[in-house]
């Protein structure tokens, strides 16, 4: 995976953050603040929208062709256009295994860090995932992996995948503190 200079700098900053870790109040929750920066980056948030339409591009605009959540119940699916891998050529739809739109309870868009933090660990909203399962999800899910290596013309999240997994692991190890 290519590491953009900005992402590399962010990773180094996080490593520094980890090494300087001290007891902090929940009100600060610096680890989650860094996590928010990833979750609400276009590559993650575009498929975790608050509305009924997936989002597209670094501008996070609604999906062209008026694609809505209901499309999957009306004879179509994300796989109508998004395959297991991107076909060669310009302007092809991006692809990864089981391309799909999570339910509205898993929305990242428009939430405060505190609300997002609470929802992320609420098993009634996060697909029944424990905190360890969340770390597993961000470590291995093909769509998450695609988000960190999204191909040309798509800005990746502001750190490497390895740094993000380390960040999530550390956050969970600290008891998943949330900002106020």
């Amino acid at each position: 995976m290519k590491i953009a200079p900005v992402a590399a700098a962010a990773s180094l900053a996080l490593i520094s953050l980890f090494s300087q870790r001290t007891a902090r109040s929940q009100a600060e929750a610096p680890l989650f603040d860094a996590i928010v920066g990833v979750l609400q980056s276009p590559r993650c948030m575009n498929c975790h929208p608050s509305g009924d339409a997936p989002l597209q591009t670094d501008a996070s605009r609604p999906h062209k062709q008026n694609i809505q959540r209901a499309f999957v119940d009306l004879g179509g699916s994300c796989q109508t256009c998004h395959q297991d891998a991107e076909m060669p050529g310009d302007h092809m739809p991006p692809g990864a295994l089981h391309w799909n739109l999570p339910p509205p309870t898993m929305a990242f868009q428009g939430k405060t860090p505190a609300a997002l933090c609470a929802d992320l660990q609420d098993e009634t909203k996060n697909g029944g995932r424990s905190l360890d399962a969340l770390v597993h999800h961000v470590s291995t899910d093909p769509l998450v992996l695609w988000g960190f290596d999204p191909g040309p013309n798509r800005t990746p999240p502001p750190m490497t995948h390895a740094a993000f997994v380390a960040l999530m692991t550390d956050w969970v190890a600290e008891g998943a503190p949330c900002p106020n």
Partner: protein
Amino acid sequence: MIITVNGIPRTLEVSPQMPLLWVLRDVLELTGTKFGCGVAQCGACTVHLDNQAVRSCVVPASAAEGKSVTTIEGIGTPEAPHPMQAAWIAGNVPQCGYCQSGQIMSACALLNRRATPTDAEIDVAMSGNICRCGTYPRIREAIHVAAGGR
């Protein structure tokens, strides 16, 4: 590889990366499925892959291996058209006609999931199929007719 097309298993010696659309049109000479944009933006190439609507221009042949593909030629004949095709003819839906096989395949996929769709459901289901002639009102009406709602 073997791909079942319109109920017939076809043994194909093609690149796994060849778009399914080329397999259908160039190899099997099933030219009812049209090339529009080549990047899944217009819907003209829509076929069914295991009963799911897909844009065949962006589906690699390898993704169809061992699966069942249905094209516009597989749903009906001039003598015995599919109810959707019959409704299309009765309503004089096509203008230039180029996008219509893709439109019909998406419409059939819709009725497989919703026997009597609402206008709103039709609009969502068909929004990925573009018609430059603007036949959308007749398309919606024909879907209602095929569903028995008109």
